């Protein structure tokens, strides 16, 4: 057995509440990190995973303090060390890679200088040796042209490159243990896959132990040897990655894995009821009792201990885990959704829509000349049928949210038309639209914290559209609000609550209820699940689908998460740099991706399965502006054929399975190339 480099023993961390009660957010956590091992710590927000990871480098956030237990790094307790002693360990022995490297790098110092600083602090090299080391490090993290990279400022780098610099800085002190706190969460799908690939390579190459903290089981699955699952401040399951992901024997992990939408599965993921208990509200019994379908009376009264199962090399905190051992073959199931009637009428048509953020120059305005030849969004034509869910997918900067905003009338279109019902043109100016059109198109936003007025009660929030569109008052208003809450499965008592008193999922339900209050024909969903935890996300997706089936609403669903889109959408439009690449029925686009960009995008998706590795077919370069001429994907295309891609906009082709793509290569040839 290899050497243990860090071991956490019975660690509890907590804070004092305003009423003077001691509330613990980490409870009795024990785990060991072996040399050369990558341990993934996974859990939903509030599970204590970051607190645990930070405690492992001897750092405890302000306001928190250790209640008991120890963090032994090479048999020295980090939590008892003075800051002087910790200084010698941090950076040299334990290094950290933060979530947002863009914010962790000093904006006014060059990359090279910042790495040099780390080297000066943590090594004894002289100037010329350090310089050599810097380019060595930049090379190691696979940054392009390391010679010039050292002379750049952080803002000149893309998010993925900044993250690589952070990795280089962390490696500067040759640490024994690397701590990664959600290092890829803010990155695009393709960039994320590349950074993870780099991390995996570094772990193997240098033999460094890693602690990888994430809420994303897909990312954890790609890098970890061992996985620790946390719930409500406790370890509920710990064991080899493959075992945990393929045969989870804790009901929470099982539910979590089932609630993740997967690329390989059509249909909606199963959701888990309820939400994680708040710290301080756990009294006795198992913390997962409320949400568990295996729970017995014993679970209510007694809290299970972490039990070691020798045959599986796994620790589990559950009385009834045995019931799960033989049940795991149905992890790959999903809820089938009713498909819509494809004969339905078109309800919304986008015709050659272009949107530009550039301001028209004064002179051009006078002459009524169009100045921006290269708008952010260009030539988008999509017909949306009544009752269908169409998804717009793409990475950041693909213009998907921009299109949504202009459908809602929040952004003026530069060119083209948006037609609503019977080919009536909708004005691109919100003030020119008639109230009934405004009612018919409603928006749901990404972050319910921002989309609900913090100073309004749920009743006030829901009464806004009801008063505006239907002039409801008094008893009738109240009755309608209660009906709406019922529709989104919230009780009547929620009316008097403020958003801050609700959990993330509950807030998003209120936002959904507000959109449905207007009895809309079309609902525009802007990344509605990306701020939510996985188990909550599944519940919201199921709710949206249910409401759609009941009310016949049309959804325009924008998301960067391809697996979520796969679960909910009937049709998918893939966007790159504000230009359409591919559009077609979901099952076909996912099964037979034709456009090279779709292929790249789908290849980079991380699945919570250690056997499915992402396929990295293209570089993760970030382009700031769409190219002026030719195909929008010319800069990154792995199948570029030549000058024609740079000079001519590719024509539309329609494949036999109903996908329409824009590419110079023949669609059948593309299909054979991909095999």
């Amino acid at each position, binding site marked *: 057995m290899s050497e243990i480099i860090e071991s956490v023993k019975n660690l509890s961390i907590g804070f004092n509440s305003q009423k003077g009660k001691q509330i613990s957010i980490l409870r009795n956590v024990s785990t060991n990190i072996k040399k050369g091992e990558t341990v993934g710590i996974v859990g939903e927000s509030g599970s204590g995973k970051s607190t645990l990871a930070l405690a492992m480098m001897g750092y405890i956030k302000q306001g928190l303090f250790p209640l008991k237990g120890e963090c032994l790094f090479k048999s020295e307790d980090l939590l008892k060390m003075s800051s002087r002693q910790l200084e010698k360990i941090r950076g040299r022995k334990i290094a950290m890679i933060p979530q947002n490297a863009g914010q962790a790098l000093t904006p006014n110092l060059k990359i090279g200088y910042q790495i040099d600083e780390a080297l000066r602090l943590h090594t004894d090299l002289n100037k010329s040796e350090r310089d050599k080391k810097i380019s060595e490090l930049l090379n190691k993290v696979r940054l392009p042209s390391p010679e010039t990279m050292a002379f750049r400022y952080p803002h000149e780098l893309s998010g993925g490159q900044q993250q690589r610099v952070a990795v280089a800085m962390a490696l500067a002190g040759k640490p024994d243990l690397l701590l990664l706190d959600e290092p890829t969460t803010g990155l695009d799908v393709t960039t994320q896959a590349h950074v993870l690939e780099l991390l995996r390579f570094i772990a193997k190459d240098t033999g460094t132990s890693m602690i990888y903290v994430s809420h994303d089981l897909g990312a954890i699955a790609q890098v970890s040897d061992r996985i620790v699952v946390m719930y409500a401040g406790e370890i509920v399951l710990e064991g080899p990655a493959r075992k945990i992901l393929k045969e989870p024997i804790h009901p929470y992990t099982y539910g979590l894995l089932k609630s993740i939408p997967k690329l390989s599965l059509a249909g909606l993921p199963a959701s888990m*009821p*309820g939400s994680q208990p708040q710290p301080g*509200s756990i009294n006795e019994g198992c913390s997962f009792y*409320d949400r568990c379908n295996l729970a017995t009376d014993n679970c209510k009264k007694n809290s299970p201990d972490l039990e070691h199962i020798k045959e599986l090399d796994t620790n589990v905190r559950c009385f009834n885990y045995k019931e799960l051992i033989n049940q795991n073959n149905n992890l790959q199931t999903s809820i089938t959704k009713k498909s819509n009637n494809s004969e339905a009428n078109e309800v919304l048509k986008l015709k050659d829509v272009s949107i530009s953020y550039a301001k028209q120059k004064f002179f051009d305005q006078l002459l009524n000349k169009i100045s921006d030849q290269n708008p952010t969004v260009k030539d988008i034509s999509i017909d949306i049928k009544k009752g269908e869910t169409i998804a717009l997918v793409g990475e950041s900067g693909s213009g998907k949210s921009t299109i949504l905003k202009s459908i*809602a009338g*929040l952004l003026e279109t530069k060119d083209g038309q948006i037609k609503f019902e019977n080919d009536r043109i909708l004005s691109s100016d919100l003030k020119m639209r008639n109230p009934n059109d405004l*009612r018919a198109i409603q928006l749901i*936003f990404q972050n319910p914290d921002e989309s609900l*007025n913090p100073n309004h009660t749920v009743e006030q929030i829901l009464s806004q559209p009801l008063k505006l569109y239907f002039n409801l008052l008094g008893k009738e208003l109240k009755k309608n609000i209660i009906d709406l809450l019922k529709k989104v499965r919230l009780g009547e008592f929620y009316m008097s609550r403020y958003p801050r008193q*609700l959990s993330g999922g509950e807030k998003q339900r209120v936002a959904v209820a507000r959109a449905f209050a207007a009895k809309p024909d079309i609902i525009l969903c802007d990344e509605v699940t990306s701020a939510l935890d996985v188990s909550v996300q599944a519940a919201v997706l199921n709710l949206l689908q249910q409401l759609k089936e009941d009310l016949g609403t049309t959804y325009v669903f924008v998301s960067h998460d391809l697996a979520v889109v796969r679960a909910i959408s009937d049709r998918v439009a893939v966007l790159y740099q504000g230009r359409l690449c591919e559009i077609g029925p979901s099952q076909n686009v996912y099964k037979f991706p034709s456009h090279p960009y779709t292929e790249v995008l789908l290849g980079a998706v991380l699945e919570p399965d250690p056997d499915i590795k992402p396929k990295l077919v293209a570089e993760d370069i970030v382009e700031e502006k769409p190219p002026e001429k030719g195909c929008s994907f010319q800069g990154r295309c792995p199948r570029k054929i030549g000058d024609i891609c740079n000079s001519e906009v590719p024509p539309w082709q329609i494949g036999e399975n109903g996908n329409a793509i824009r590419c110079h290569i023949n669609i059948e040839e593309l299909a054979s190339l991909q095999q």
Partner: protein
Amino acid sequence: MESNLITEDKQKNKLEKAFEILKTMASKPSGLIGLTIVLFHVVLAIISPYIAPYDYKAISPNTMLLAPSAEHWFGTDSLGRDVFTRTILGGRTALTVTFFGSLIALLWGGLLGIFCGLVGGKIDDVVMRVVDAFLSIPWILAMLLIVSLLGTSTEVLIPALGFFYGKGIVRVARAATHDVIAKDFIVSARARGHSNMSIIWNEIIPNVRDAILVEGAMRWSWMLLGFSSLSFLGFGVSPPTPDWGLMISNARGLMSFAYWSVIAPIVGLSSLIIGINLTADAFAKALGIDRSTKAPV
């Protein structure tokens, strides 16, 4: 679906909420001191006409410049008037004028700021440049001009002070509005087609109210100082109305041998200003707007 959140505050009525805020403010010593001082001054201002031992304008050559004694607690001034009487009555004028002045400042400054913040664009540009231009005029000179043209009655002083002290509030209200309008709930209200007035009233005001109120409380103490300065210069209220600024101005020449007639109004004025400042700070903290970390523009 069961919520696991601790239902700490159910919906409370407004009175209960106000009481809660007062309780939070009084929970720290600085807030308690501030509130006590302000409360003391307000109560004194209300009851002073009934408890004043002498007539504030009774001139008597027999009692000129008497030192504090059992009959005249704070002594008498150069015209033989009782300083105690004049001091407690002086607070009355100052508080009334500045209270209504601040109210006016809050109303026009707050609403204009919110409006500019919401509509943005050219209207915002023009209004803000005008506000800047006014900010660059030394207010005391402008006040002197207004007072000499229109007289020194409270009907002139209240709106004039309200106008000059509201300029700063425009900027604060605009900045606070900018923080809010980028949020999705405003976008959402806009997309639903609410009118600007409805958005201001329902969505913005509840979210910027606290910041503006705190700023108004600060402005109140400044206005008090400004009002007293005007009186000190002889452009505020006219004699024989009792007023702190006026009293300080009249008595300062005699400070070397009749210090009592100047100390009482100074103590009155500065304690009220300190009291208001402490209260405003406690108010800000109780509402969760920390002035020490977030400076208004």
